[in-house]
């Protein structure tokens, strides 16, 4: 069997909203799955109504929704009505995967819970995406992105002592949760391919952020040293050469040099730091470690005398680089060369830049198809072509407000 994409022929029914859930199925759509997004006729996914992200108003098009739902088809159906539920249940019959991130009681009331759907289709992979996981007192709580990282301990450990807790940025936790969700679907699909068995799978914001924070959390779990739960100043780093420094033009430099005599020599030579180099306090790696505070202070003074690019020019080949912003990233050829950022030409929205494909498969590469669908854009097509409804049925369903 020849397949151009890894998930050719895989059918996904999607009852998700906002970010964590929709991005699970966007990942699957990027890899070739056919995703049918079920939305209520009263506005659908509330992500459609997002007026601004990062305090920037959505302009002309809703880049948030259109990206989170790219490659999907929208069927607008009121699944709280008997006829609406029937439509979704019919779609479930030959679906491979169902993904939802509503609250459990809501999903039960809609009769879209695992017990109901697995009776219709025992081979179904049922992914439930929550805030805090399948069990425990928090299992039915609603939540937003900061609740993962805020609960895990990351916000209190980042930044300078005294700085307000640092949020790692819009939806980092949701993005991780979405990725974990896509990975979970694949593990379950693989198992089904081998055994024929479908099953219920849960992923969550909290459960996903804990492994995301591994680099920070493991040292605490290993040592139980309370000091590691707190913020630490860049002025007190044990290795002065693994730090950030501000240059004359207020641009920052990120330096990640494992200190050794050889690296120190290259570092000093590249920057013309003869005076610092000669200082007996910094004569060898051990002294530099003992006197790292003084070395950081000395480097702060010196590095403030030239612009970032002047410094970087002297350090070619060393693990030192600029602290960029998104404009720099968009001008960087590297993400474009790897499809991490892609320009698409969408029939509705024209040429648009998209965050790209997150993993590269050499023979079945991912692809961005159309951007997010209009609400109910594919209702008629799916009902008629897939489920065999007649045009009279459609008209009636519209009258009864079962579909848009």
């Amino acid at each position: 069997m020849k397949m151009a994409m890894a998930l050719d022929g895989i059918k996904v029914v999607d009852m998700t909203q906002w970010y964590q859930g929709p991005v699970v199925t966007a990942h699957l759509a990027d890899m070739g799955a056919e995703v049918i997004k079920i939305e209520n006729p009263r506005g659908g996914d509330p992500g459609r109504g997002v007026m601004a992200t990062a305090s920037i108003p959505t302009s002309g098009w809703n880049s948030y929704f259109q990206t989170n739902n790219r490659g999907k088809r929208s069927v607008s159906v009121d699944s709280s009505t008997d006829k609406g539920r029937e439509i979704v249940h019919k779609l479930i019959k030959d679906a491979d995967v169902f993904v939802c991130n509503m609250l459990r009681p809501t999903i039960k009331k809609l009769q879209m819970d695992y017990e109901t759907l697995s009776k219709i289709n025992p081979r179904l992979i049922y992914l439930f995406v929550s805030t805090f996981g399948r069990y425990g007192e928090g299992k039915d709580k609603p939540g937003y992105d900061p609740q993962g990282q805020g609960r895990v301990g990351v916000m209190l450990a980042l930044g300078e002592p005294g700085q307000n807790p640092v949020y790692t940025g819009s939806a980092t936790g949701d993005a991780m949760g979405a990725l974990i969700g896509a990975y979970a679907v694949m593990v379950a699909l693989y198992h089904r391919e081998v055994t024929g068995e479908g099953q219920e799978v849960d992923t969550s914001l909290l459960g996903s952020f804990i492994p995301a924070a591994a680099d920070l959390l493991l040292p605490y779990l290993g040592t139980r040293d309370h000091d590691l739960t707190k913020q630490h100043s860049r002025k007190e780093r044990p290795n002065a050469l693994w730090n950030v420094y501000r240059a004359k033009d207020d641009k920052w430099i990120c330096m990640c040099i494992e200190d050794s005599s050889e690296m120190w020599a290259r570092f000093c030579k590249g920057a013309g730091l003869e005076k610092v180099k000669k200082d007996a306090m910094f004569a060898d790696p051990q002294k530099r470690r003992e006197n790292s505070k003084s070395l950081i202070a000395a480097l702060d003074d010196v590095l403030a005398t030239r612009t970032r690019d002047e410094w970087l020019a002297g350090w070619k080949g060393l693990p030192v680089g600029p602290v960029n912003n998104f404009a720099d990233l968009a001008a960087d050829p590297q993400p474009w060369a790897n499809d991490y950022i892609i320009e698409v030409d969408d029939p509705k929205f024209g040429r648009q830049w998209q965050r790209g494909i997150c993993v590269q498969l050499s023979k079945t590469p991912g692809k961005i198809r159309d951007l997010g669908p209009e609400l109910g854009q594919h209702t008629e097509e799916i009902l008629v072509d897939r489920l065999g409804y007649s045009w009279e049925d459609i008209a009636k369903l519209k009258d009864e407000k079962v579909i848009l």
Partner: protein
Amino acid sequence: MGNALNGVRVIDFTEGMMGSLASVFLGDFGAEIIKLETHEGDPYRNLDSAARLPKANWNYYFEYCNRNKKSIDVNPDTDKGKEIVYELVKQANVFVTNLTGQKLHGLDYETLSKLNPGLVYAVGSACGPNGPDTDMPPIEELVYSRVGMTCTIGEPGYPPVMTRLGEPVTAVHLAYGIMLALFHQKRTGEGQRVDASLLGSDINLSGLILQTYLGLGAEERKKVSKGLLMPTGRLGQGNPLLITYKFKNKWIYLLLLQPMRYWPNFCKLMGIEHLENDPRFNTIENMCFKHNNELVAIIDEIAAKKTITKEWMKQWDEAGMIYQVLQDFEEISVDSQALENRFIIDVDHPTEGKIKMIGFPVQMVKTPARLARLAPALGEHTVEVLVDSLGYTLDEITQLKKEKVIG
């Protein structure tokens, strides 16, 4: 109960976190992971190998990144060693690596895919397989700095914050890519190369806010700065009910996305009923754009005097408030929600007694993830694998040891 990935065999030629952790996400579900090591072993067997890792009595880093694996110790530079590796590769479904140059010992995609055309060959790197910077060192802070996300977080005027999420997140990207390719392999027999990188992963993780920037038109992109190219900080957020507050004993993150809907209840809970109809705060426009700093100052002052208790949280929950009490690493490690869901697990360690380890983010009802074994000692399973999988005799093994082909 069975395991989801029973019968999947992975050869893991990795070190550190990005590569090693990728196969953990397969081993947790029952794939057989054979960690291939040279006689020197993975440098992360020694915590001293990375200065940033604090000392401890047990290797918390290696234990997590290598659980559920077997270790074989083979010198792939000898002919006989190469033969062992090649035979294993022929039987494997997946080969995963983050090593390059001499450290890869010639076990590249071209060579291995010829031996086994169905092989999924997975690579973790700094910046991906294409473009001008394919040989950048895989250091998370350097790559994260390059992505630009750090310019959007924290407070204006503070040094850029390094969140250090990229390495474990890349491991999950790689595991996801491997699962896609494995599924394709199962359906078609076709193998392929899979790539994930710190750059791609940090971009995906920054997806929402980065997309806000990418989604602007060319002209608008030139104009934006705050929030996208530099941090807005706590005060620049707009909605005063969507930021962190410092109470007497704890920080909370208030998450009232629709402020007006929650405002009356919020006023009652905070004891500021007199402000409920205050014209400064009676519309979104007034509260979030015109007078937000005033309201933040008022709430700051009251919060500083209030202690967050169980009773307080109960009241807030009953009033339908959405918020998060910020915890530290100590609190999450004993959080019943994390423990009941096995996001964090308690494990018996032979020398350390009870230890805490990061658990499993995915809950599968019929085929749950499990911890079958702690990280292996170097070469702990060399003999087992050579005898059971490759049919070597014990005499041959003695000879291979003598010739230092295996450790």
